[in-house]
């Protein structure tokens, strides 16, 4: 299991490739479901130039570990990965990567989606956007999935 909050650029496909190379369960997982959230260059009808992601370090990490542990119990999973960016982010950069490995595709699909919904609705991260006009604004709320 890998849970990470990082201020560094995140390359999801490289990350997954590297992670799978050292997965102990080679030959056991038949299904991998992945979600990647990417920063868009628009939001609420405005062009967005940049974003800053604030978080509550200890609580965010604890929360992500908890939901990953719960997912491992709720579904038949072999492994789970959650990586989330914080700090300054540019359009088209990856914000979040969630992956679930299972022997069965329904478990992988259900778990990855459930983790994303919990992350979006309860993990203590906050986005502040800088518009092309130079104005900054806090994103008010996440849309339901």
């Amino acid at each position, binding site marked *: 299991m890998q849970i990470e909050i990082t201020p560094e650029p995140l390359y999801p496909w490289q990350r997954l490739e590297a992670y799978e190379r050292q997965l102990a369960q080679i030959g056991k997982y038949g299904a991998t479901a992945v979600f990647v959230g990417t920063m868009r260059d628009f939001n609420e009808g405005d062009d967005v130039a940049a974003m800053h992601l*604030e978080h*509550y370090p*200890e*609580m965010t990490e604890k929360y992500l570990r908890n939901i990953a542990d719960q997912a491992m119990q709720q579904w038949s999973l072999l492994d789970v990965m959650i990586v989330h960016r914080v700090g300054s982010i540019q359009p088209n950069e990856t914000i979040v990567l969630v992956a679930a490995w299972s022997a069965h595709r329904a478990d992988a699909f259900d778990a990855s989606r459930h983790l*994303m919904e919990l992350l*979006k609705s309860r*993990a*203590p991260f*906050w986005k502040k956007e800088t518009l092309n006009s130079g104005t900054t604004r*806090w994103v008010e709320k996440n849309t339901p999935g």
Partner: protein
Amino acid sequence: MTIDVKFFASLRERLGRSGAQLDIAEAATVAEVWQHCTEQAMPANVLMAVNLEYVQAEHPVHDGDEVAFFPPVTGG
């Protein structure tokens, strides 16, 4: 007792500080911690945590607790 209070994101900016060390005489709830720290009514959508776990406003606080207030989360 001593309470470590934290504010995040737009709430931190609106209150003009990221937290406070609060010394109060008696056991209190999270809502009372808010009242001690700010001169404002608590916004309806504020989220609260004690020692890194979500709680409601009437949750009790104890000496040494970390109490956090923050707006709706927008990660992912």
